[in-house]
């Protein structure tokens, strides 16, 4: 019990931050706190905050052939807005985003199946579903390219059993973006599965038992209990999923060779950014493009937060 007044005193000392005299009991603590955050703060300053300001500056400049930035006002932004490839990349990115979100329903269904009372092997299933997420993206891209291969690929072979025609999935402009999107879904489902498994576990079993007594079947229980009570988790996962797929780069970079005829139909905004910044040396325009992307991410995230009131139920 003797600890309590000391705690209260410490709290009071911490709260009354009006005078900065060095004699208060909390002050030694206060000064050393800065030493604790200094290393990280320094790292952030050098590698995050300063670069952010720099990018802002770059976006208003032109990068010369021999280095050096010349101020050109809003020209880069105008170039970005007028460029057809930017709009195409943005369109592709939004398609990836929509396809990427398909991982959520799959993960929710699997999570609720795994939640079945007395089911064995839950951790084995979870482990297997999670493996694609842990695997090197380059390896994932390479193996899927091989599966999608138009001449010797297994995908054509299997679809052939059902009478489908052969296709060059990743070099046909009408299918490439979906072929890559499918791999995105495949590789991220395990990640959302883990998140949803935690969410589903938080739903009291009594609800299901009571519903069962009232004669509700498994589908009914899924739609009236699992989905509404999981909606905060679904909301979180959809925000994360959207932000991640808007920044997608790795898979596309790996799966699309330079000479691929479908390259324009699959390029993401970050892919275009990479091309401008590090291949075409158009740093200013690339910086402007990056800001455009951030704006899109912010706008869509804001939109999600606005819409959530209509469908997310907080218990």
């Amino acid at each position: 019990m003797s600890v309590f007044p000391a705690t209260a005193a410490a709290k009071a000392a911490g709260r009354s931050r009006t005078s900065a005299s060095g004699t208060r009991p909390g002050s030694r603590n206060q000064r050393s706190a800065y030493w604790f955050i200094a290393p990280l703060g320094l790292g952030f300053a050098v590698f995050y905050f300063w670069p952010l300001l720099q990018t802002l500056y770059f976006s208003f400049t032109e990068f010369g052939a021999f280095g050096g930035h010349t101020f050109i006002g809003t020209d880069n932004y105008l170039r970005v807005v007028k460029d057809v490839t930017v709009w195409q990349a943005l369109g592709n990115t939004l398609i990836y985003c929509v396809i990427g979100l398909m991982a959520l329903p799959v993960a929710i269904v699997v999570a609720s199946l795994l939640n079945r009372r007395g089911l064995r092997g839950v951790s084995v299933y979870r482990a297997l579903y999670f493996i694609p997420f842990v695997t090197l993206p380059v390896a994932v891209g390479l193996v899927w390219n091989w599966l999608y291969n138009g001449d010797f690929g297994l995908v054509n072979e299997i679809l052939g059993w059902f009478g489908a025609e052969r296709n060059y999935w990743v070099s046909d402009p009408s299918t490439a973006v979906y072929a890559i999107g499918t791999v995105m879904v495949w590789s991220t489902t395990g990640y959302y599965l883990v998140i949803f498994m935690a969410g589903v576990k938080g739903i009291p079993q009594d609800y299901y038992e009571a519903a069962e007594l009232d004669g509700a079947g498994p589908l009914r229980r899924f739609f009236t209990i699992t989905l509404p009570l999981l909606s905060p988790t679904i909301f979180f996962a959809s925000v994360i999923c959207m932000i991640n797929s808007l920044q997608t780069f790795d898979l596309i970079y790996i799966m699309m060779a330079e000479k691929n005829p479908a390259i324009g139909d699959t390029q993401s905004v970050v892919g275009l950014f990479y091309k401008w910044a590090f291949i075409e040396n158009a740093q200013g325009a690339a910086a402007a493009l990056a800001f455009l992307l951030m704006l899109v991410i912010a706008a869509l995230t804001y939109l999600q937060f606005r819409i959530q009131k209509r469908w997310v139920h907080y218990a």
Partner: protein
Amino acid sequence: MPDRKRFDPGSVATHAVLSLGALIMVFPFLWQLLTALKTLAETSRVPPTFLPEDWNWASFEEVFTALPFREMLTNSLINTIGRTLGQLVFCSLAAYAFARMQFRGRNVLFALFLSVLMVPSSLLVLPQYDIIQSLGLLNSAPALFLPGMFSAFGTFMLRQFFLSLPKELEEAARIDGAGSFRIFWSIMLPLIRPALAALAVITAMWSWNDLLWPLIVNTDPEKMPISAGLTSLEGQYETNYPVMMAGSLIASLPMLVVYLFLQRHFVQSVALSGSKS
């Protein structure tokens, strides 16, 4: 109580669906292995064969001559260790201060640090590249891990754990005359070991798998990590699928092993990032 003797059709159906899903998740890797073991001629056969005719291990040796594969694996290892250690040290220090210490400007600084989470990484790579270049570090090991040593996510996550610890421990130590660092190092840090493990495991995975940043800073094949190195294999060996599959398998193996052994921590870190953000 699971009753094993009674036949439960619902449970059988559930297992059937889940197994089919699991097969779809794992099959590409099995196919990767089978392809790596085939001869080049066999991989281009129509219809494809399932099992290799002769089990041919040569591709696993060939990747080591096709690329500076050993160096690339070492670079990946250095990158992964550098980032992980950096995050554990820097994030835990800052997280501790934000969770357990009183100081002027704490909330403002914390909000500022958290804002790093919201900035897309592509927005920063141009100036980050310039910084690495001006430090003369292009094509070096530190170039790979320097920016990744500082993480807002890690700080946020560890802070949540520090917040959950009881105050009494700290006060008792302070009465015994221990300084802030001593309390942090020998009392508080050991108590959040599970969180540190989870952060380490997830950071290691991101570092091993990262592609964009290594592609930018280390363009010399000898200095690339394996994630970037494999893409150059794709360029040179466009049609040599056994070698590409063998390379992919070897490159994925370390993280798969880490995952299988430390699954608990992976799952925990994902569930945490899911519930606490």
